[in-house]
């Protein structure tokens, strides 16, 4: 029994693991807000593309200024904005639809980022960027994460009504005079801010996992937005703790192991959720078939 307890606690006797843990816990809170909006507004894939496309910005900042947090953030914000505006222009001015424009743009940006990092850095650098490097979470990163999470929670608290209406019923939002034209851009900027904050622990590719997976899992259980937000934050936290323990004992990068733990929760929920799960649908279909057979007999 004590051996199990030790295995669970031991990882967090190290400072770097604790910093990684705090960072992931903070991001679980802001990520639950962002992830829920992404899921409900059907922007999940767009968020995915966005997170990939940040690589070149981060890489350029890294080449020029080293691992400074501020420069990486600025680099990521600039590329995020260029991709968002560029693909919007491309879809408006050419025949391409928004998803194609965005998809194409992010691939090019991603390739550019990989080329940059692999030409100038080592293989290890590239791996760290892509999949996260928990040893690299310094005190400054933790402050950035705390700031990002704080700003996100604050803005969501302040504009909660506007955000709910913008996602749920934009027409009413407009009729009610609560429509905000800056919603989309503001939301993307918040997402980029949190993605950069998640970079060290999760890596560019998997950063969104910490936002998206808890929210999708919570969506399978909840019929209220507020419970979806809290459940998703809680799931993110549990997944982070489990993932870091797994990472510590197996030597797997922290990003993938957190995402794998969250993924296990998602699959279990997709099967077992009492209202929206697979078993539920199968039971209903089976009952209907039986009912039909009985009435035809």
């Amino acid at each position, binding site marked *: 029994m004590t051996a199990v307890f030790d295995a669970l606690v031991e990882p967090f006797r190290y400072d770097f693991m604790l910093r990684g843990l705090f960072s992931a816990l903070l991001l679980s809170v802001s990520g639950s807000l962002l992830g829920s909006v992404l899921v*409900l507004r059907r922007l999940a894939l767009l968020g995915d593309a966005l997170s990939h496309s940040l690589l070149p910005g981060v890489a350029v900042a890294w080449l020029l200024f080293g691992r400074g947090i501020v420069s990486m953030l600025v680099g990521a914000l600039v590329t995020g904005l260029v991709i968002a505006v560029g693909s919007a222009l491309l879809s408006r001015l050419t025949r391409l639809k928004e998803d194609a424009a965005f998809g194409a743009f992010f691939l090019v940006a991603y390739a550019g980022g990989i080329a940059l990092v692999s030409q100038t850095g080592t293989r290890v650098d590239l791996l760290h960027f892509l999949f996260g490097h928990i040893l690299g979470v310094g005190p400054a990163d933790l402050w950035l994460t705390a700031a990002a999470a704080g700003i996100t929670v604050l803005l969501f608290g302040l504009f*909660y*009504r506007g955000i709910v209406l913008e996602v*749920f019923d934009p027409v009413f939002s*407009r009729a*009610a005079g*609560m429509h905000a034209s800056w919603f989309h851009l503001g939301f993307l900027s918040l997402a980029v801010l949190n993605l950069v904050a998640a970079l060290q622990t999760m890596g560019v590719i998997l950063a969104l996992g910490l936002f998206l997976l808890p929210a999708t899992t919570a969506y399978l259980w*909840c019929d209220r*937005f507020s419970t979806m937000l809290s459940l998703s934050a809680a799931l993110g936290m549990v997944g982070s703790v489990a993932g870091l323990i797994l990472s510590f004992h197996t030597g797997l990068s922290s990003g993938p192991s957190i995402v794998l733990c969250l993924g296990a929760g998602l699959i279990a929920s997709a099967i077992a959720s009492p209202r929206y799960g697979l078993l539920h649908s199968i039971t209903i279909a089976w009952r209907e078939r039986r009912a039909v057979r009985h009435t035809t007999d």
Partner: protein
Amino acid sequence: MPHHDIFRLHDVTVRYGRRLALDGITTQIPCGGLVALVGPNGAGKSTLLRSLLGWVPLSRGEIRLGDLHPRHLHPRLAYLPQRAEVEWDFPIAVREVVAQGRWPSLGFFGRFTAAEKRKVDRALEELDLTALADEQIRRLSGGQQQRMFLARAIAQGADIFLLDEPFNGLDLAASAELLHLLHQWLAQGRTVIAAVHDLALARANFSHAVLLDTRLIAAGPTAEVLNDAHLDLAFRRRMPVLGARP
């Protein structure tokens, strides 16, 4: 309740790019009654409703209620689009949607007090939704979903309801229920301006009608507006099959 309010439309013209959607509409729409907007598809009924909300930039003319531009009228105005394009799988209960009706007055920060809650309860009751208040919205029938949005408008404190084809897709019972409700509202001095396709229904229930075909064909008491000559003018041009007489 201000019965004497009148929407005054003067030379209202709306263009979407090159297409003329409304052409020099000048008329008055009195409040405190049931007003039917009638006309063929593409006649500009939806555009007129959205103009009354102040959402559509007019390329000519103006709309006023009293001295006010429509944009200064909410929360008195409520709008129900043809098909509510809300996210039906949003994790939200009927009561919460109706409570959104209070948000325009409360703004982002106003506190949701017990008095606010009572307004929501009353709106739910008025539209017979109390029993369904805690259901997720996907589980409602089409008619119930429409009633939920009407309840939100009531909670908002609206007294002018702009409804875009509210009878579309309703079965007989739900239509009858909606009509009953509209008549109740009429008795309470509320105003309903609705795009309607069913001429018989309009004749039987709406006191006032506006017949449109991009331009105004006729407006006034329904019986006078929806006569054969006017309908001929409004619809014939759009129906080459009927119009192709020797």
